[in-house]
């Protein structure tokens, strides 16, 4: 079913454009070779699934930059995030910010000492109504059924409309080839090429293997991850028993990262 629908769309798209018929023939060939059974694609067994993934960050358990370091390190390491000397070219999936930058709309001159000094973890909010998804002209940034805002690096044309659209500064652009600036490459995850945008992917590749996101694992209990639509999930339990805030809720984007402060 899936396959034939895609083939149909391909044919429709390609013939509409009047392009060569060759790719269409190839697409047929995939499903018809040898006259044997059709090849199929499936989701992995044991993959973690949810209706809407969300994250709760307990800032009470992440007191200093030293506590955040391993979390950031874990993410950037497994995703082959390069380290640039030049600040302009910086690439960040998850990083630390002060309260006044994380929540600029909650500015408070007389903020208590703890929050004033507390480093906050910021990352892509995987918004319910994500402005970046709306802006992308090629659907290279798209919303998965489980709520994750995912990127297709193969399709990104590097127009950076999504970067202008994101109200959280969560996106980075590869201003140059990142490879020489990756300290230690994780061979299981691809790097990126110059000219594409990237950001946190909620570790889709780990969820597919039945594992929790890298930052969650590295946070030793400070970050919870789960299904927002399941009342029994860990995130829902935490949300029920704690007061949480999210970034720039007034914009209506519906961030999926909650902070216990």
């Amino acid at each position, binding site marked *: 079913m899936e396959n034939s629908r895609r083939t149909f769309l391909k044919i429709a*798209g390609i013939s509409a*454009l009047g392009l060569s018929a060759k790719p269409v023939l190839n697409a047929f060939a995939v499903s018809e070779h040898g006259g044997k059974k059709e090849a199929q694609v499936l989701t992995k067994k044991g993959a973690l699934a949810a209706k809407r993934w969300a994250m709760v960050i307990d800032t009470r358990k992440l007191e200093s930059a030293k506590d955040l370091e391993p979390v950031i390190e874990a993410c950037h390491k497994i995703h082959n995030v390069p380290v640039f000397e*030049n*600040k*302009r*070219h*910086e*690439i*960040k999936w998850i990083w630390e*910010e002060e309260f*006044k*930058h*994380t929540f*600029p*709309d909650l*500015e408070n001159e007389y903020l208590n000492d703890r929050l004033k000094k507390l480093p906050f973890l*910021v990352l892509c909010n995987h918004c319910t109504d994500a*402005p970046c998804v*709306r*802006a*992308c*002209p*090629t*659907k*290279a940034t798209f919303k998965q059924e489980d709520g994750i805002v995912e990127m297709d690096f193969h*399709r*990104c*044309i*590097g*127009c*950076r*409309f999504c*970067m*202008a*659209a*994101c*109200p*959280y*500064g969560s996106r*980075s*652009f*590869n*201003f*140059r*080839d990142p490879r020489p600036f990756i300290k230690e490459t994780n061979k299981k995850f691809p790097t990126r090429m*110059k*000219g*594409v*945008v990237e950001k946190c992917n909620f570790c889709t590749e780990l969820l597919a293997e039945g594992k929790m996101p890298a930052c969650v694992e590295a946070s030793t209990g400070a970050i919870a991850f789960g299904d927002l639509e399941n009342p029994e999930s860990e995130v829902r339990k935490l949300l029920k028993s704690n007061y949480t805030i999210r970034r*720039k809720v007034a*914009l*209506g*984007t519906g961030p999926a990262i909650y902070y216990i402060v």
Partner: protein
Amino acid sequence: MLELALKGSKKYYGWMTALLAVIGVGFGCYLWQLSFGLGITGMSRDVSWGFYIAQFTFLVGVAASAVMLVLPYYLHNYKAFGKITILGEFLAVASVTMCLLFIIVDLGQPMRAFNVILYPTPNSILFWDMIVLNGYLFLNIVIGWQVLEAERNGVAPPAWVKPLIYISIPWAVSIHTVTAFLYCGLPGRGFWLTAILAPRFLASAFAAGPSFLILLCLLVRKLTRFDPGKEQIQTLAKIVTYGIILNVFFLLCEVFVVFYSKIPEHMDHMKYLYVGLHGHGVLVPWMWTSVALMVLSIILLVNPVTRTNEAVLSIACICVFFGTWIDKGLGMISGGFVPSPLHHVIEYVPTIPEIVITLGIYATGFLILTALFKMAISVKEELSA
């Protein structure tokens, strides 16, 4: 008709060669950018659009301004403009071409640009911008060419051109509206998040475009045997006057809303541009220069004595053009990115290679403009001879 653009004086060839040289250097820099990445520009994670997109925005305005000739001539039957509508249309062709080039050089993966068509995404404004810009380019090439050819042959243009001309009028408005929608529909970018952005863009377009056209008309009169006409220039001058006054009025509306409401997310960008923010303010002198130029031009344009004096008028037009260029080509894009959504102040300054590539594209535009104007004017000269 294109052969007319190939026959010219030594001066003409000299000018074209000079433009080709600039294009060559710009293209060389672009090849560098292509191999290295956009890291050779001054853009950053925080200011992710820079000079290229700003020039694109400004030039969409210049392109849209062709409508200021087409509309009075075809809808109001203002005969005087019949003589020069072709100049407006050809200016639009050159400007839109530059716009498209600026988008291409701004892409991180230009080889994949066709993905916009392969995976059409109507919820993205960029998709619509591609449609309206290419459509407008097509309309102006076809209309300009057909009308000029008919004029040369002493016949009326084919009947099917008329509907295209009528379509081109709202279409011109659409290109700048859609371009404004690129910016003003983004949450969290307080500087652009204003319903007046599209009208403001149009006002500055109808000031910058016709003011440039006046300068071109004066130049054409000086260099060729074709006189665009005193009346035509004066009517254009009045259009520029309305355009620039509206532009300044809209700017003041913004200033009022922003500084009276005092919502930081909106106010901080204005502060950054006009007085500096947290000690940063590279654009402050530029923005005040822009204000000064626009105010000066209004003084010169409103007064009939100065407006009808063509020497003064040309100065006023230069003021309008550069005033609006700074406003849109420098301040409008950077201003929206500083401060960043996380309220960091990270400034943007274009790099030399970035400026060279920009100049290369401007040279391409001028090359197209010169060739097309040469063609149009040669036809006019032929006819009057």
